[in-house]
């Protein structure tokens, strides 16, 4: 099991999609998750100490994982901890948009892998 602590990796403000002069962005977290995907049965993403997580950051780091893996694979692999309900809703919102857009692109109904 791999634990990714966002506070240690990014800081108290997880704001930007991409790396800036000041900090690493959501794309860095997504790449870390993807690099470690096959090496770990579970990947824990901890929001402990994080004050700000913008919708764009959550989209880039978590929702865009759907470009590589299905929702069911994400559910099995990813554990999101120490997070308030409002941010959970925002993650679900970003995930739902990505899924709908992918579906529109493929023009086929959502499939479950199981």
């Amino acid at each position, binding site marked *: 099991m791999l634990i990714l602590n966002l506070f240690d990796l990014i*800081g108290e*403000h997880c*704001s*930007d*999609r991409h790396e*800036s*002069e*000041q*900090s690493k962005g959501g794309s860095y977290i997504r790449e870390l998750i993807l690099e470690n995907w096959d090496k770990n049965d579970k990947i824990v993403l901890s929001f402990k100490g994080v*004050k*700000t*997580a*913008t*919708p*764009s950051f959550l*989209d880039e780091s*978590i*929702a*865009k994982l759907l*470009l590589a893996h299905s*929702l069911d694979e*994400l*559910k099995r692999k*990813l554990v*999101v901890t120490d997070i308030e*309900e*409002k941010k*959970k*809703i*925002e*993650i*679900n*919102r*970003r*995930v*739902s*948009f*990505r*899924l*709908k*857009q992918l579906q529109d692109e493929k023009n086929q109904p*959502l499939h*479950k892998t199981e």
Partner: protein
Amino acid sequence: MTHQSEIKICGRFGLGFHGNRDVVLECIEKLVSVKPKSTVKINMSELDFIYPDGMNILTTLFVNLLFFQKCSIDIIHPQNRHVSEYFTLARCDAFFGSSDIDIEKIFKNSYKLKNFRYVDDYEIDKLLKVIKSELDFSDQVQSDLHEIFAELIMNTRDHSLSEYGCFLNAQTYPTTSRIRFSISDLGIGIKTHLSKKYQDWQDSETSWVIKMALVDGVSGTNFYNNSGAGLHTFENFVTCCGGEFIILSENGFYKKISTYTEHFGRKIEEEKFDLPFFYPGTLVCATIQAKPGVKIFKRDEDIPPEYRLLDL
């Protein structure tokens, strides 16, 4: 160079709450109608009160005149020393490098106009510190404000393609517990940006397109790079807090007011119209109530269960 007639800036300069909207729009129209490569005299002697959005508007129009239209500007400075100082310092800092004078020490409830080219969390924290020193609001609202500033800065970087980044400033009004903030850029404008993806919108009213930009997920960028969440998050925040926001982009004007009373509950009013002139870029400004008990809700009933990653 040809010489233009003098343009007077009105005494109370701001589009939003307590501003002087119609007169300010007339001033903007005159400033955007100046012929390229001409000399223009801008008379600010009567300028007595400038709001954050007014500051952004004048900065945007001055940058447009100086750098895009290649005009020369003669400025008659405001007679009001307070405004003159505020204006000079803020402009100085935005264009000509950091000023040695710390404006926050002079104007305790003001965050000076600042140029952002990326999401600078340190600067956003500094801005929020200025706001919080004067007003009492929860840590949750502070964190939401941080998110909104970050999202709006990302919007200007990723969508407007403005080479000057964006300008952000804010002011608190402790006696009425209000925060007013404003962000502007000199980029391609909301309609031009969205019409790249939604081509049918090219023939629509600009103010209607601005309204559509507030819908979650609407973005002109290829969806692999974007989510269209920025303006929606901003709108939700202002609506929950209570207050108003204005978006001025190209020739579109959009305003939304959210008020809450115990007796009538939440009331939302909207105003939108197209202007007879084009503003060079986009201005987003808001005035919000900063009450300690305010809660920012995120709705999730429209997310189908099979599209959810996390259980609540």
